[in-house]
Each structure stands twice: as C-alpha cells, then as structure tokens.
C-alpha cells in the first residue's frame, strides 16, 4: 500500500485564480493510495518546503506529487526538499497545473477538472516510481590530447597548468603542426615561429605533460572518466634519454638528398633528421625507408659519430597503455594537393590546372615555406623551377573548396585571409612584383580581418579580380592563366611567373579510422562532429571526448586556440570532482528476456549498448545479451521503444510508469 502526499500550490493567485485548489485537494484525498493532501499559497517558499518535509516525516509518505508549476521550474527544489526529509528524490513528481493549466485556460470549471485529472495521472505514476540512486562513475584525472598542433598544445598546457596530468600524442617526430610551418600570421603578421616555439618548449618542460611524439593511438577502451588508451611509440632508432641533440649525426649522414616534407619538399634533409631546427623534442629520428643501413646493412655512420651512443638500430615499436579520464582530439587538417585524384579524397582533381605537374604552380603552404625566414630559401620568394624571383604572381582562391562537382562543397574559411597575407608578404619581399588574385568573394568575417584584406589592395598593391580561372598552361617559362573578370564580363589572360593555389582544407587522411577507435562521429568529409553546433561545439556526442582545432572543420589559429581552451575547460569541469554524478535516467537490460537481436544497439544514438557474454560458473558461454553502459547512456529511451521483447527499460520512464499514467486518463 502506498502512502502518497499531494501538495497543491496557489502560486499566489496564479493558480488559484482559475483553479479551485481546495476542490483539487479534496479530490486528491480520495484517490486510492493518497495518504495526505493539502494546498498552500507558495509551495516553493521556505514555509512551503517545510510543510512538505514535515508531512514526509509525520505522515510517513512514500511518494509525493507537487501540483504547481512546470517541473522545469522547481522539480529540483522539491526533490531536494524530500531528500532532506529522508525520501528518495526520485519518488517526487510534479503536476504542472500552472503553465499547462491555470495560465492557458479561463473557464474555472474546466481548469479545475483538468487540474484534478493531471494530479490523478501523476499520483498513479508516482506509485510506480522506483527509488533511484544517482549514478557515480570514478574519474581518472589524466587527460589525453591527440595531436600536437597549436590546438593540441594549447589544450595540453591549459589542462596541465590546472594541475592535471596530460598525455600528449603526436604522430610526427616533433610537435608544432601546421603553425610551425607558417611564416607570418594574419591578421597581425607576427612571426609564427616566434609565438609558437615558446609554447612548444613549455610543453616539453611541463612537469604535468608526458609527450609521446612519433606515436599513434593504437586502441581505446572504456568510457568517460575511465578510458584505457594504448599508444604505439614508433621506433625512433635514437634513445631519447641519451641523445643530447648535438646534431652531429645529421651533419655526418651521407644520405643528404631526401626531400623534406616539412619544407614541402623544397629543401633536403638527411636520413637521420629533425623536421626543423626548433623541433620539440630536439631528438632526431631515423627515416628507415631512406637510411642506407636499414636498406643494405651498410653505413652506420651516425652510430659511430654519436658521442653519447644514442643511436640504436635495434629499437622496436613499443606499446604503452595509459589510464585516461578525458580525451581531447586535435588532429588538425591537411591541404588538398592538386595532383591527379588524391587517394581517399572526395576531390576529383584539377586537370585544367595541369594536375600539379607545372612546377611553378604551388600551394599556399609551399608559399609559406618560401616566405619563412627559416625556410629553404631563407625567406626569399624564389620559384621552384629555376630559383628566379617571380615578377608576376597569380593567386587562385577556392581551389577544391566550394566546388561540389570537384567533390567538396564547403568553404575552407582560412584561404581568403592567408591569400591576402601572401600578397602582402610578396609585396614586402619583391617590391616591384605584381600580385593578382582571382576570387569569388572575400570571406573575412573576423576581428580586423576585412581591414586586413582591404589593406592588401589599398596599401599593398594587390590586384583582385572577381572571377574564376578556367585553365593554366605552361608557355615557355611562363604560366598562362586564363581567367575572367565577371564585373567587366571579359576574359583576362595573365602570363605569370608563379601561381599559388589556395587549396582546400581537408581532414587528415585516416581521420575516420581514428574516429572509429574513439567511437566518435564524423561528417561526410571526415571532419569530426560536435554534439551540438551551437551549444556544445567542443564536445563530442560520445561523453568524455572533446574537440579542438581544425579536425572539426576549417579553422584559423585564433579559432583553434579558443576552441582548445574551451575543450580544456570542459575537461577541467569533468576533473573538478572525484566522481562523476549523473541523473540515473539510464536504460537497463533484463538479461533473461533479451533475445540478442540488438535493435537497441542499432538505434542507440550514443553507442551505449554493448554485447555482453553470460557465462556459467565453469566459464561456458550461455548466451550473449545487450548491456547498456550507464556511463555512456544519454537516457533517450529509444532502445526501449525499439526492443521487440521489452527487455530494456529506461529508469524514470518505465512502461509501468507511463502505462499507469495512461490508465488514469
């Protein structure tokens, strides 16, 4: 037998003006199982709450219905009150007789009837309510950051500065990402290296950061607060602990002619190398594919010249397992390169631009390396084919981007700005040179951005032509650019010395594979998806995984850094408590009835359903059933409605509770 207490609120006159609260209370008293009913002027006031607490104790109530405002307003208030009187908070329900009744109806008779019925329905429901305990999950306060570009670096530093341990995993031999390759950066034109390298050094020196470079994520298990992450450390062939970074090995290595991808293949590097002089860590790796020793067993020079004896040809890949509470993904982007049809890319390629076979047609990042003081030309703009200074440079925007027929329909967001920057850098370095830009729109919606673009035209001599280019072809040592000016409606032909393509920003190759390991979702292009575009832009739908930087969509540095700090803040919020507490509105599977059809698994938007093996004492497999991971379940109830054998049930919204409400109609 249940003992339900019903409390009807007047809300001053907000309710009592249209609802005859006394009559409702009288009617409530008569419902079977109701042990106590009363009305009061302001239920949420202190005296109102005390009235409720007292009744819980005095009347020995085992369920409560407060008929008042919307549960969205005061459900928490009354649940807390009940709890302080010793009643499980999930035995309290609210009957919404204000927003859904007194405020929307004028007829007192009708409103009173409706209020009574609402109360009845909730009384029936509360009878079926179960005591629920908030779910607690322990939190391992160690964060994993994947990707050591500016976004990953920022997130790692913020979390580490807050006192939590961070494991930073970077695929390349050095952290730094794309920003380390840039020359000067818009919109302020400060030198990228100058603002970047101090942060890289901070990472290396931070007591709370473990850095795994030349490493990749092998496997991810577990869930929010409790991930086990396996990291593969690729063999560096150099002992990190012994190496002093003296560089002798690199100087002596006879294999010197390997194109350096950091310099977009414009410069050369030895087989034992660091990608760039400011690399962090400053420990070389041996590129085994190009090393003579690994190819033919001969050479061994680096080992001989290394004073501390750090070179170790026998090193093998190593697996490290880390316990992690939260993961920040910051794997950044890749530029589309215009060669034939790029593997794994949606882009079909640009035959009309020569498929990247004209040597002086380069991409934006190559231009950055040419303009960088620490680049292969020492900051001189020289064209790749013959090292001459180009007198006419044509820039093409939106190459690959905004071209659904080429495979990508989105705007790459950063190229309008970096092209404007490139025209300026070019003008600074080649004073009498002329820059032309073919563009459709200038998309410069940032603080100081449009002013920056205008400056390139008004102060820095760039000629902007609104229109696209149809074809590029080599004519002697010139590149003929066939474009059009749509404002004038005439064709434009320019014989250029160099052409720079603002090629599309794309996710990393293999971004989808990492997403599958992490169980996070990604869009049709492989950019990672945030939980909500506006209100949860740094969280993944998968609890405990956060996004930072260009892996989520094209972003410039300010955006990447803001998002990284936001992701760090989210991680810190999670780490603020020792245990994760959450509403116990989660689904549970009844092992007995489950027929293992796994519809639930198919429909669960959170990927919370797993397959569980049931074994007898001898360890023999009896059957496989569904199991809902309470740490992951979002509580939507879709599984329950989909389960053909009614084996899964959402706490707080059980069939019994709902049916009871319907029965009371």
């Amino acid at each position: 037998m249940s003992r339900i207490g019903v409390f009807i609120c007047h809300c001053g006159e907000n309710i009592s003006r249209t609802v005859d609260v006394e009559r409702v209370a009288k009617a409530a008293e008569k419902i079977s199982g109701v042990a106590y009913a009363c009305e009061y002027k302001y239920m949420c006031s202190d005296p109102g709450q005390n009235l409720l607490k007292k009744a819980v104790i005095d009347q020995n109530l085992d369920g409560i219905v407060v008929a008042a405002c919307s549960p969205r307003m005061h459900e928490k208030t009354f649940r807390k009150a009940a709890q302080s009187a010793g009643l499980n908070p999930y035995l309290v329900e609210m009957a919404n007789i204000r927003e859904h009744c007194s405020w929307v109806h004028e007829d007192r008779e009708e409103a009173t009837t409706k209020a009574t019925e609402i109360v009845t329905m909730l009384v029936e429901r509360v009878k079926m309510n179960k005591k629920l305990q908030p779910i607690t999950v322990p939190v391992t306060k160690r964060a994993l950051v994947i990707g050591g570009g500016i976004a990953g670096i920022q997130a790692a530093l913020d979390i580490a500065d807050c006192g939590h341990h961070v494991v930073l995993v970077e695929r390349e031999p050095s952290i730094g990402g794309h920003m380390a390759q840039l020359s000067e950066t818009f919109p302020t034109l400060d030198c990228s290296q100058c603002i970047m390298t101090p942060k890289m050094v901070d990472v290396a020196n931070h007591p709370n950061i473990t850095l795994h470079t030349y490493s990749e994520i092998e496997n991810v298990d577990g869930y929010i607060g409790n991930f086990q992450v396996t990291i593969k450390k690729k063999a560096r062939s150099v002992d990190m602990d012994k190496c002093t970074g003296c560089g002798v090995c690199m100087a002596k290595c006879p294999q010197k002619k390997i194109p350096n991808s950091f310099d977009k293949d414009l410069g050369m590097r030895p087989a034992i190398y660091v990608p760039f002089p400011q690399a962090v860590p400053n420990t070389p790796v041996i590129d085994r594919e190009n090393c003579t020793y690994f190819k033919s067993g001969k050479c061994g020079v680096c080992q001989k010249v290394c004073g501390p004896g750090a070179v170790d040809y026998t090193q093998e890949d190593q697996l490290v397992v880390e316990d992690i509470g939260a993961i920040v993904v910051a794997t950044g982007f890749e530029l589309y390169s215009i060669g034939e049809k790029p593997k794994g890319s949606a882009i079909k390629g640009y035959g009309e631009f020569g498929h990247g076979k004209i040597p002086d047609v380069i991409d934006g990042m190559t231009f950055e390396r040419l303009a960088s003081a620490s680049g292969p030309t020492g900051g001189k703009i020289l064209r790749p084919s013959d090292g001459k200074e180009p007198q006419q440079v044509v820039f093409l925007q939106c190459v690959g981007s905004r071209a659904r027929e080429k495979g990508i329909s989105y705007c790459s967001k950063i190229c309008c700005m970096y092209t404007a920057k490139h025209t300026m850098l070019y003008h600074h370095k080649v004073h009498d040179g002329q820059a032309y830009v073919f563009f459709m729109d200038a998309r410069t919606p940032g603080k100081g951005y449009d002013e920056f673009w205008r400056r390139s035209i008004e102060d820095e001599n760039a000629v902007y032509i609104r229109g696209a280019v149809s074809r590029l072809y080599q004519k002697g040592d010139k590149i003929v650019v066939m474009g059009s000016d749509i404002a004038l409606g005439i064709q434009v032909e320019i014989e250029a010395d160099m052409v720079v393509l603002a090629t599309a920003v794309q996710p990393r190759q293999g971004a989808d594979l990492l997403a599958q390991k992490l169980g996070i979702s990604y869009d049709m292009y492989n950019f990672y998806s945030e939980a909500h575009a506006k209100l949860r832009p740094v969280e993944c739908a998968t609890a405990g995984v956060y996004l930072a930087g260009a892996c989520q969509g094209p972003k410039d540095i300010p955006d990447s850094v803001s998002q990284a700090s936001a992701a760090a803040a989210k991680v810190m919020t999670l780490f603020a408590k020792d245990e994760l507490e959450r509403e116990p509105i989660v689904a549970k599977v009844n092992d007995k009835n489950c027929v293992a059809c796994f519809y639930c698994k198919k429909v669960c938007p959170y990927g919370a359903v797993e397959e569980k093996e049931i074994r007898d004492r001898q360890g023999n497999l009896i059957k496989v059933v569904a199991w809902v991971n309470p740490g992951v379940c979002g509580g939507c109830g879709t599984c329950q409605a989909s389960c053909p054998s009614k084996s899964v049930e959402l706490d707080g919204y059980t069939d019994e509770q709902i049916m009871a409400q319907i029965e009371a109609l």
Partner: protein
Amino acid sequence: MKNSKMTLSTETMNLDFVKKVEKLSDSSVRRCFQCGKCSAGCPMRTFMEHPPNRIVRLLQLGQYERVLAGRSIWYCASCETCSTRCPNKVDLAAIMDALRKCSWDAQGASKESLVQLANRLFLENIRTYGRQYEMRLAAAFNLHSGKLLKDFMLGPKLFTKGKLKMFHQKNKNLAEIEKIFSRIEELRRKGEAP
C-alpha cells in the same frame, strides 16, 4: 534593351521560361554562383555580347528577352568546356541548346541564327538521304543564306580531291527514317514532347 534599367518584380521575372529551360537542358540554373569559370574558358566568348556566366545570371533573374535578344547563344560552339569545368555542374552547353530551341521555336530564323539555318538544312539532309550529302548541304546553305559565293573557291578543290560526291547513295531504310521524324512531330503536336 541592352542598357535599359532592369525592374524586378514577380511580373518581370519570367520564371516559367527558366523552368522550361531547366527541363529541356536537364540542368539547374539556380546552382550557379557566378564564379565566371565558364566564361574564362569559353573559346567563343569574344564573339558573344553576354559571356556564358551572364546568360545564366539573366536566366536566374528570369530575363529571357535579354538572353534571346543577343547573338551570344548563336555563337556557342557546343564545345562543352563550360559544362566540363563548372564547379557546380551547371550544364551550360545543354542550356545553350535549350535556349536555341526556345528562340527558334519562338522567333524562327534571325540574322544571328545562320548557324541554326545550317543546322536545319543538315537535318533536312538526313531526312531525305539518311546521311550527310555535303555538296548539297553547302549548296543549299549558300542558297538559303544568300551567301552564294561562300566556299565557292573550296568546292572544286575538294571535288578534285575526291572529297565531295556529286551523287549520293540513298539509304535503303529511308521509310524508317522518315517515320522517326514524323513521329517526333506527332509527339510535339500532341504536346507530349518539348
């Protein structure tokens, strides 16, 4: 017309015409975002008063009179450069075909549609002989277009090279060919084909 102010309203924008063009050409005109790539590569641009991108723009605004008034559509060579390179798969070459058909249907031959005249004669040739009979085609064109001397000089030379035949061997299946032509005409009469 060319330089007159354009007043836009639902009355002055003939979107039905645009829909007809879209249907005939199997291509959307609304997808075009006016990048100008079509015009940048069009070999015939210098002969046209409206570059291809502007043709699409005028269509977007329902300005069919402006589109049809000019010579632009008659100078398109159907080379498909525009359609091949358009980033949005606007099939401009097919749109040009559709516009030519609309223009011819509405106004018949104009000064600008000499090409169309040649085209029509070409098709007449097929209807009568099943295959092209170049000598007759050239003669008929010159007769119709009033350009009697055109290619007069080339004729005899081709002839001596064996490239123009005086007599044509007719196809055996001429009846079937005639049937195709007349059944298409029939479809049109019944309004079942554009």
